[in-house]
């Protein structure tokens, strides 16, 4: 976390308050107004807003344009960038472009394989992976240098983030080791995959804390409320790297259909209350997929509203 940037998210984390981020998924059209509307729904309840980059490999309005829109509204965006669709020339170019608009947060991702999305016949790039993108942004920011060697004066002042998925294979040991690799590469904050298996996450955090990594990187716990039992089952069976225990599916499915959304919110709130007491958790990343309007309620119910006002 050492390098100071103008990021408001970084300031919130450093203030010792729980930081809250959420995300906006851009539309599959040129309708930029939707992004502004989604941003407006959550702006008073979060410290920063991620914009996803063609998530699940479905082609959408680009994250760079969307974060600029949010920035122009006075909000604090987090630019998500995957290495799937762009080589190091395009990635660095976009980082410079984002920084030129005062974007100060980036989430470095490798990205889902295009096999999942709406263009499975596309080529993929993967010139870099997420860890190499972290290294790249760090070099640009700290050394004022591109990978190709060109040196410049106006540096992109990025608070550098990445994802971590404690629930992916093969085991927790390697997941902690990979987080360590991201820390070694220079990551400053982590937004985790959606947490449903609290036991696994607790074990993960214990390993992180035992190694002292929680002092080097701020971990924001990923929360995605379940809308209904269908979504729970789908996430359990079909989404790679997500661990939905059977009791979660049973709990959501155990109430009448019209109450399932409420139960999903209840579950998310309970999880967050428990996570607040877990050492090393510095905040939350609420991914309310096409359900942004629920973010205010969740934040209020866990007692994290109003958001603290920090100087500057």
């Amino acid at each position: 976390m050492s390098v100071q940037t103008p990021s408001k998210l970084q300031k919130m984390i450093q203030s010792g308050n729980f930081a809250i981020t959420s995300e906006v998924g851009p539309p599959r059209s040129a309708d930029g107004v939707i992004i502004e509307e989604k941003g407006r729904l959550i702006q008073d309840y979060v410290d920063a807003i991620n914009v996803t980059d063609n998530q699940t490999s479905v082609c959408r309005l680009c994250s760079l344009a969307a974060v600029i829109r949010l920035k122009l509204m006075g909000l604090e965006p987090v630019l998500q960038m995957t290495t799937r669709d762009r080589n190091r020339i395009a990635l660095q170019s976009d980082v410079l472009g984002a920084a030129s608009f005062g974007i100060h947060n980036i989430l470095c991702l490798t990205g889902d394989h295009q096999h999942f999305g709406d263009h499975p016949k596309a080529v993929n790039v993967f010139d870099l992976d997420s860890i190499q993108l972290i290294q790249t942004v760090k070099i640009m920011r700290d050394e004022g240098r591109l990978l190709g060697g060109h040196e410049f004066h106006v540096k992109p002042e990025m608070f550098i983030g990445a994802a971590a998925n404690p629930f992916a294979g093969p085991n927790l040991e390697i997941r902690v080791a990979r987080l360590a690799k991201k820390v070694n590469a220079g990551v400053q904050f982590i937004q985790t995959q959606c947490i449903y298996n609290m036991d696994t996450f607790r074990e993960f955090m214990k390993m992180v804390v035992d190694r002292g990594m929680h002092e080097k990187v701020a971990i924001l716990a990923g929360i995605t409320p379940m809308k209904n039992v269908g979504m729970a089952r789908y996430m359990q069976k079909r989404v790679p790297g997500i661990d939905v225990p059977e009791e979660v599916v049973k709990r959501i499915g155990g109430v009448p259909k019209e109450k399932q959304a409420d139960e999903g919110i209840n579950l998310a709130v309970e999880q967050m209350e428990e996570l607040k007491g877990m050492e090393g958790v510095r905040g939350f990343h609420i991914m309310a997929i096409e359900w942004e309007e629920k973010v205010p309620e969740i934040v209020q119910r866990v007692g994290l509203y109003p958001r603290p006002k920090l100087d500057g």
Partner: protein
Amino acid sequence: MIKAVGKPLEEVIGMVENFRKILVAGCDGCVTVCEAGGLKEAKTLASALRLYFTQAGKAAQVDETSLTRQCEPEYLAQLRDNIDGYDAVVSMACGCGVQFLAEMYDKKIVFPGVDTCFMGVNEERGLFTERCQACGRCILAETGGICPIARCSKRMLNGPCGGSEKGKCEVSSEIPCGWELIYQRLKTLGQLDRFENPVEPKDWTTSRDGGVRKIVREDLRI
């Protein structure tokens, strides 16, 4: 070796149906090993084409042969004396052989008889799997002898990604996660300490990204 599979018969028929003198040319190299384009497969394809022409009521001559290798001029020369007797050649070599044959006999129409797939191994009888993408700068010494470029669907140098599940790739449960294999091998070799050091961006100039490649061996040139 190079792995290939025979093209569907309908596709080959679509290419040759308007020709009357056709040579099906197998290759005794890699495509013989993977049983896609050797003499045996050339004979089978030629028979199928003869049957097609007969059933379609078209008079046509379809012969088969196989060359020692289609990627060397000396062996392509084996066709020199009789290729003029044909209107078209279906080469059952890999893409290298098809092109080299067409280069040598540049007035002859040459069609591909196989789809060239990858460089791989014969994992079991009838099971060929990819191992190398010829990036031109081998890193197997650092990755426990397992290539992340060929074996990871995202060719990550710092894997595994968050989509790895139960030892399988997010692309398909039929694909082993290359990075899980690397991790397990490094563990077996007592080299896990390597794992936490970020691997820097790769220089892809020796891969296809550097343009069309060649090797010049002055010591071998005459």
